[in-house]
């Protein structure tokens, strides 16, 4: 099938129409937004921020930047001491070598590796937990499902995952992006903690010496999962420290549709158990939109029926149940769904 001609290259277009289409074609992202995004994603071409530069150094050398900082601080201290000794020695000769000290001191002020703004990282040994941007309380994750979904990172995927981890490492610098991240984290349900631990297992760096929790008053509500030991596999040492990625990890995208589905369904189930039918319906709606033919569509229907029954919307619940049972008579869920509907019919 051949493509039709584009409108803009056809005749019979009014000046206004042509002008509008051209304007739409040529719109470019404002430079400020682009730079912000490049910084957030950790690309070159962006003005290197502190964390960015550090990640690059680490990636290049495989050495923790903090170590470099300390080494350079040591060099500076040596320089200062040397300068002092020199100036002491020079003092006997004349006053001028004292000038050497001043420039030597200046770089020392760069030394403290300031944590990036908004970094809310709590680090305890290997497992790291993200506090902010987590889905609302009351939603919890079934550990079983999470455990099933977490370690599914095949080795071939790692290259991408590494890059993803390092991109996330920088994405916290877009502070206004937090709303959408929260949205998406929520949309993906509450398995986030597991997804996060999965990616942390990939992105796990050498043990961080720095990074003390800045997440004041926000206790991590994600289930803490031990990072699997394969994180320490050779070849993964060269990555930038993942402690910087923690805040952004809450927004980490699901690395597979199935995981996202599981997250949504688990979230909905947890919300339902917690009595929050509205949140459950919201998550189920998201599942329906994103995965209309998903692997967990039957579960979605079952939960929807349950939620509707609980909300007193029995007619809708029955309609869903009827349709489901008709379409999937052999499904193990059919019986359960039928029971859900019947339960409240019986006087």
């Amino acid at each position, binding site marked *: 099938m051949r493509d039709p001609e584009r409108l803009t290259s056809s005749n019979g277009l*009014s000046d206004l129409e042509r002008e509008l289409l051209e304007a739409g074609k040529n719109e*470019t992202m404002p430079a400020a937004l*682009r730079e912000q995004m490049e910084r957030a*994603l950790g690309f070159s071409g962006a003005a290197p921020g502190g964390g960015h530069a550090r990640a690059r150094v680490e990636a290049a050398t495989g050495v923790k930047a903090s170590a470099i900082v300390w080494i350079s601080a040591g060099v500076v201290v040596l320089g200062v001491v040397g300068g002092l000794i020199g100036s002491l020695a020079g003092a006997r000769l004349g006053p001028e070598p004292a000038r050497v000290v001043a420039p030597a001191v200046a770089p020392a002020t760069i030394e403290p590796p300031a944590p990036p703004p908004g970094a809310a990282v709590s680090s305890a040994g290997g497992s790291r937990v993200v506090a902010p941007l987590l889905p609302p309380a009351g939603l919890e994750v079934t550990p079983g499902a999470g455990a099933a979904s977490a370690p599914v990172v095949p*080795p071939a995927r790692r290259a991408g995952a590494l890059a*993803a981890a390092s*991109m996330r490492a920088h994405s916290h610098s877009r502070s206004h992006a937090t709303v959408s991240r929260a949205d998406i984290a929520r949309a993906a349900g509450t398995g986030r903690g597991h997804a996060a631990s999965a990616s942390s297992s990939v992105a796990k760096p050498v043990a961080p010496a720095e990074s003390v929790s800045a997440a004041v008053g926000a206790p991590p509500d994600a289930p803490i999962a031990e990072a699997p030991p394969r994180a320490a596999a050779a070849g993964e040492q060269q990555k930038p420290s993942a402690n910087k990625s923690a805040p952004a990890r809450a927004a980490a995208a699901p690395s597979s549709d199935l995981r996202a589905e599981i997250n949504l369904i688990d979230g909905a189930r947890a919300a339902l158990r917690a009595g929050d039918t509205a949140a459950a319906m919201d998550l189920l709606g998201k599942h329906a939109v994103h995965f209309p033919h998903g692997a967990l569509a039957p579960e979605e229907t079952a939960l929807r029926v349950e939620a509707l029954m609980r909300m007193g919307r029995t007619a809708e619940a029955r309609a869903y149940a009827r349709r489901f049972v008709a379409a999937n008579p052999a499904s193990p869920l059919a019986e359960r769904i039928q029971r859900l509907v019947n339960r409240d019919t019986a006087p």
Partner: protein
Amino acid sequence: MFRRAVLPAERVEPAGPYLPARLRLERLFKDHHQSVWRTLRRRGLTPEVAADVTQQAFLIAAERLDDIVPGSERAFLMATALRLALSSSRRERRLELAEDMDLHPFRGRDPTDARASIDLLDSILARIDPTLVEVFVLFELEEMSSPEIAKLLEIPVGTIASRLRRAREAFRSVAERMERVMRRENQGS
């Protein structure tokens, strides 16, 4: 089917996986971020929100880099971004065609002002069925081929053709109507 099972201990990390993946991503970003952002803008997102969603799409692309077939990068990014935009539910209110055309912002519009043209374009698109706009924008503005669009939206090529036809009709009729109103206003004043 006959792939040899690889025991975990045997797994060999590809040499320096970090850099190529990273480079590929940077390349991806450089080539496509404008296109993705623009498409989101035409779906009614503000510049900032569109940038946000674009960033999110690239994060997902980074996660799934190995799943992205070379050559289909843009389609992957677009599809992801459009899905995200849909779920972000922060899309601006779509305007109804019946709604009074408030041309106030466009009165005395300077034709050389790209900003004003963009706003006018978006206000036209906001009056058209979003599913039509999607196809229209990808085809007319981002100049993707219909098979490419069909693949990324997961609908048949024939549907693309019919949506495109309807989208063009809608676009032209709304634009004409706006033009008429503006002309009348200019004469009136």
